[in-house]
């Protein structure tokens, strides 16, 4: 069986599945149960400075997006960092780490953007025996208004500065958690690296309004008639998160910087995909908030089974394997031609491919009087929309034309490699 043990910036855990900093890691009771269930590590919910506890709202904290059967697709929250006293959290972290020495114990931190504040908290965290810290530069609500969270994460100079303070004042590895609420995620990642970060973790939640109550005319969750933006997470954000992970993984300035992948990871496959794009491990939250801790069993068995099938003996074997295949649009092969092919045996004749192609695309699907749907190669641009709207898996597939074949649409020969940088229509190429 594949070896799932993970070594992330020197922090060892029996598997690469950590719980992200969030309600499930806010106290000893939950974290012990998580470890009993098999989670490899936790990032303890964000601690703040000593003093009066942070105040959370007492109305609803979550908004949600559902599928038809009330399957939770996306969630947002307006919760702040832990609202329990610092000393209580520290005492509990110490006790749990002592009892589970083989599990990763990371502590998420968020204190004011002043060196003294960080200097004050780092030694007390270190004293717990925690394996590392994660700097919460992501929280998009509440804390940001106090000059913390994403207010810091959106300014690369601040990230670099705080990261440096932390590296100078603790022996613990420093993971910088990035906010996606920024135009180019590579910039904060570069700043983290300059500040000496051991790793980045991403994504934190995305600014969002999940729904509007059309009776009360207020965003939800609604607190006494008013709502605010929250942080979006869950399966719906996975594509956004994966792109950001890949951007950092393939950026020359940040290449090789360890990444802890976060954002909608719900199954072993999601985890494998993040890791293929360069994440050394993954952090999960919404999925456990939806289904409970037990899902880690599926993640372990699934990842293990897949690794065996592919011959990967260690998670490090496949981390980043897909990164070289992430490229820019201009390098895609313009001579690679595919056409949609409809398998008539599998076709249930719903006509969705026809509706999509006829109304919104290229009029490349033909419909006979007895509802037989076929592709007109002379119109098909291989957009793939028919594949995506077809309710039957693998009924419509994209078939690659052989090298040298003529594309009926363009009349041009396929095969070989030619991209936009070499294309005669490209002004910058033509100018040369």
């Amino acid at each position, binding site marked *: 069986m594949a070896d799932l043990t993970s070594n992330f910036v020197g922090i060892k855990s029996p598997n690469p599945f950590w719980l992200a900093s969030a309600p499930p890691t806010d106290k000893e009771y939950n974290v012990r149960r998580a470890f009993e269930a098999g989670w490899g590590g936790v990032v303890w919910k964000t601690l703040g400075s000593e003093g009066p506890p942070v105040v959370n709202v007492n109305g609803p904290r979550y908004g949600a997006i559902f599928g038809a*059967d009330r399957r939770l697709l996306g969630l947002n929250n307006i919760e702040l960092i832990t609202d329990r006293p610092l000393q209580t959290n520290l005492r509990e972290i110490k006790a749990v780490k002592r009892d589970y020495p083989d599990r990763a114990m990371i502590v998420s931190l968020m204190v004011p953007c002043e060196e003294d504040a960080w200097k004050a908290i780092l030694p007390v965290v270190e004293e717990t025996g925690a394996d590392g810290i994660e700097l919460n530069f992501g929280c998009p609500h509440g804390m940001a208004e106090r000059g913390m969270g994403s207010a810091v994460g959106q300014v690369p100079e601040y990230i670099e500065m705080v990261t440096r303070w932390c590296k100078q004042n603790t022996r613990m590895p420093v993971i910088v958690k990035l906010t996606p609420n920024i135009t180019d995620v590579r910039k904060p990642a570069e700043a983290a690296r300059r500040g000496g970060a051991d790793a980045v973790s991403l994504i934190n939640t995305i600014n969002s309004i999940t729904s509007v109550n059309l009776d009360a005319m207020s965003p939800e969750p609604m607190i006494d008639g008013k709502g605010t933006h929250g942080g979006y997470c869950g399966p719906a954000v996975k594509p956004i998160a994966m792109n950001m992970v890949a951007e950092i993984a393939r950026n020359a300035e940040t290449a090789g910087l360890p990444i802890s992948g976060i954002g909608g990871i719900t199954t072993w496959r999601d985890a494998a995909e993040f890791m293929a794009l360069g994440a050394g491990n993954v952090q999960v939250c919404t999925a456990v908030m939806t289904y409970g801790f037990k899902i880690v069993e599926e993640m372990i068995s699934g990842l293990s089974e897949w690794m065996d099938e592919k011959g990967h003996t260690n998670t490090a074997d496949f981390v980043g394997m897909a990164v070289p295949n992430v490229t820019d649009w201009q390098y895609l092969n313009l001579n690679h031609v595919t056409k949609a092919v409809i398998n008539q045996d599998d076709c*249930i*004749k*719903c*006509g969705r491919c026809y509706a999509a192609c006829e109304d919104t695309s290229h009029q490349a699907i033909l419909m006979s009087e007895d509802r037989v749907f076929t592709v007109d190669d002379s119109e098909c641009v291989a957009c793939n929309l028919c594949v995506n709207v077809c309710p039957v898996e693998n009924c419509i597939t994209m078939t690659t034309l052989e090298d040298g074949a003529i594309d009926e649409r363009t009349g041009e020969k396929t095969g070989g490699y030619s991209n936009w940088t070499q294309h005669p229509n490209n002004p910058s190429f033509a100018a040369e």
Partner: protein
Amino acid sequence: MPNSQFTPGIASGRLSDTDYNENFSDLHAPLEVHEAAVAADRCYFCYDAPCMTACPTSIDIPLFIRQIATGTPDAAARTIFNQNILGGMCARVCPTETLCEEVCVRETAEGKPVEIGRLQRFATDTLMAKGVHPYVRAAATGKKVAVVGAGPAGLAAAHRLAMKGHDVTLYDARAKAGGLNEFGIAAYKSVDEFAEREVAWLLEIGGITVKTGKALGGNLALETLRAEYDAVFLGIGLGGVNALRAPGEDKDGVLDAVGFISDLRQADDLSALPVGRNVVVIGGGMTAVDAAVQSKLLGAENVTMVYRRSKEAMSASVYEQELATAKGVRIIYNAQPKAVLGNGAASGVEFEYTTSERGALQGTGEVFTVPADQVFKAIGQTLIETPEGIAMAGGKIQTSETGATNIEGIWAGGDCASGGDDLTVTGVAQGRDAAEDIHTFLMGGA
């Protein structure tokens, strides 16, 4: 409970009150809101959807299901009613398994269609429960139309005509409007006086005067109607019942299934309805199934349905046949009645096995007897009387596609007219289409 299932002969009160209530409760429970959302989500919103083509009234099924899925069942109901004002009843009684649901692409994919019938009921029930009638009449045209027969075809025609601004008088031979829906359908398909409530709701459009107890050929003459109204629509149904043409048909206990179903529907107290210990139903259509199943549900010990042709040839759908067998009805195929046995009262029916060669039915000579205290004939219905001067085809009134008869100013639709397959939904489609044609005629052409 004076009697039991084992009481010999024909007797009432064979079951407890609880059993009656349970047996005659809703065949399909209505969908809850969440169930409806999940069921609606299975619809693929097909292009030029096969279900819509298969529906005799051409309801835009994908659209109404999408409207349910997006939480607007009232809009869904209007989509249904636009095509089929009796969409509520059709949702209950349509053989969806041989219409819309049979051609659902999910049936092709998984052998499990979208539950179109139940979704239709969800939508129509939701709107009707609000006690709102969704249509208003157009400006009065001053034209008067007589609609004879307040069954599905007549009701649909009357509603559409009233909507167009015409004044309609709706005649029916019975004491109550509704026709097939009120008198001819198994009780468990239409509980809580739905047929009656639906008629009342339909009439809320206004402009329709109902006159019951008026039978064409009896106290209502076609000539008079033609003279008094600008147009006439005949939706008179099939009032006659085919004879067995077997000796002993006149014995006590031999009855029309249609009458039995009607009595059952109109009964206030099911325990007062007598049913045989051994019941034989002869026929293979929906009426036969309805009579057989309801005999069983009323407490008959043995119910046997006998059909002269094969299972495949039976006009009751496979679903209906399975429903019957699931309720404990025994179905014998390929057997025809030879004689009703008994001394005064029926005691059994003698059948002969049949074979069918090139469609021609023949007895094999092999006979058997099924004990029967009660025999129900369900072998088809006929027009009692042909209205004078009206051209006929195959025992029914000959009509054009839009329901016009050979006499100008007279239209016909529903069971009494040629075409269609004797379903509520076909009647509605014919009534509606005839109304549109009548409107064009009344307004002086296209």
